[in-house]
């Protein structure tokens, strides 16, 4: 209850900050010399919040039978969420596999870990066209490569990183006494993994899953733009942004949609945390 109130107060404070700045700042922003140090506060750059809300209930375009903007954004958000979820799942699975291999074979850890870290320094924009091209060459057999799959692959590429690093730390977290104990029971690596390493990794894994979800959403939105995938909220932001001078309030709806996708993803991770709650009890000596 108290957390809900604090949360609502946070949103309200943000709204007040927005409108307060808009009220107080000059329309052309604060300029020192030739540099704008504070942004413009005119209606094109910063529409009123109520204008954004009002715009959301108007039709998305002037075409007859066009759905209201909020519905179009909601559909686009659902699409983006779906792609991000696929990317997240693939990323988590790959991350866990990489971490498992690195835990099992120490040489694999030394060989793989630098690449895992290095992989995240490749800019997403450079990657997107490559993935798309490779994907289109994959049209073999039953699998017909779609653009959304390329986007999901890029999302998973961002999602696997925190999972592999977090899971590796988690898998290596059991105390020596626990490992000695499992050895004294004469059980092999796999059973030690199942009974000891995997449950012990949960407290390390949950924040990694949350990070992965955020990465997957950002990756999806950005990849939608750079691959040019229609139907998602990323493309919508760019399209509406292009007509921002004529219809400044419009582009804020898909931005809100992207925030919504992020919130749903975070909520889903919280549910995963709830399901694994029994593995989160504090460590004992």
């Amino acid at each position, binding site marked *: 209850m108290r957390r809900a109130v604090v949360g609502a107060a946070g949103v309200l404070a943000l709204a007040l900050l927005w409108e307060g700045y808009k009220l107080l700042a000059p329309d052309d922003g604060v300029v020192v010399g030739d540099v704008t140090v504070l942004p413009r506060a005119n209606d094109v750059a910063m529409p009123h919040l109520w204008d954004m809300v009002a715009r959301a209930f108007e039709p998305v375009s002037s075409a007859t039978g066009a759905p209201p903007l909020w519905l179009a954004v909601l559909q686009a958000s659902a699409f983006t969420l779906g792609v991000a979820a696929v990317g997240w799942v693939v990323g988590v699975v790959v991350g866990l596999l990489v971490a498992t291999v690195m835990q099992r074979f120490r040489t694999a850890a030394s060989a793989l870990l630098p690449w895992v870290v290095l992989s995240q320094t490749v800019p997403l924009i450079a990657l997107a066209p490559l993935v798309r091209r490779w994907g289109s060459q994959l049209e073999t057999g039953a699998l017909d490569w779609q653009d959304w799959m390329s986007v999901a692959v890029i999302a998973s590429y961002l999602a696997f990183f925190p999972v592999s690093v977090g899971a590796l730390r988690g898998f290596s977290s059991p*105390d020596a*006494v*626990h490992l*000695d*104990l499992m*050895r*004294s*029971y*004469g*059980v092999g690596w796999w*059973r030690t993994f199942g*009974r*000891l390493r995997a*449950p012990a990794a*949960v407290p390390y894994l949950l924040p990694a899953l949350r990070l992965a979800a955020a990465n997957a959403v950002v990756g999806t939105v950005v990849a939608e733009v750079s691959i040019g995938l229609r139907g998602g909220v990323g493309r919508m932001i760019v399209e509406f942004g292009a007509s921002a001078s004529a219809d400044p309030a419009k582009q804020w709806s898909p931005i809100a949609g992207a925030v919504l996708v992020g919130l749903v993803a975070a909520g889903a991770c919280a549910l995963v945390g709830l399901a694994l709650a*029994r*593995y*989160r*009890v*504090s*460590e*004992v*000596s």
Partner: protein
Amino acid sequence: MSTTHPPTGPGASAAPAVEARGVSRTFDSRSGEVVALTGVDLTVRAGEFVALIGPSGCGKSTLLRLIADLDQPTAGELTVFGRTPRAARQNQDYGIAFQQAGLLPWRTVRANVELPLELHGTGRAARGARARELLDLVGLAEFAEHHPHQLSGGMQQRVAIARALAESPSLLLMDEPFGALDEMTREHMQTELLRLRAETGAAVVFVTHSIPEAVYLSDRVVVMSARPGRVREIVSVALGDAADRSEDLREDVAFFDRVRAVRESLHGTGNGTGNGTGAGTGTSTGAATGAGRGADAR
């Protein structure tokens, strides 16, 4: 792999619980070889309680880990119930408890005790029954569904001991299990361990820093010296069966006498630094029957 001369003393089973002949363990470190243990001869008969005592770095924990096959000797021969330590480990011949209770925090007390049974394929019903029995034995029946973090250190250690007893091992290996407990809890746990041991009849190898603890619990106390780790003397305690020992024993003259014997042996009898070579085997009373060998390692 079995030893050629199994002891035939009264009550002893076919093979001694532990038989070490010239066991050494050296570790490679940056500054060269470190000799943790050298030339250890030791026999622990079935059902016998033997304490290993000595200063830090005397290799007593190393010796325990070698018996448990958590580590391998670099030289010498070591058998557990006539088998290699590896075979004994895989056969679940021993149960083990460490200074840290080492309970899995996400499992209930009951599930922790059941862990070894579960790993070795015991059915659910049989596991539950055995866990109840063991928790009764250590007096924690009402805490079965608690999680470890809800228990005090002493209670956690009792759960760990129950877990070590889960598969009714004939050998119990304990590495300073009471080392982290306060003195009151510690004395209480010692008496409980004597009771458990009388009920189970298991042999015990017990690593400790405490002279009174070693004397109170053991049939024989193995006094070790450091750098390099070796057996200096084996002191027979002979204060009666585990079942007959009680708190009163702590006030007994015989008890103090044995404590002094162990202490003098530890401190090298008058000679402050006590070099291993000069110290005699001391006056071990009541020479152990059967395979008990008052060995020192020279």
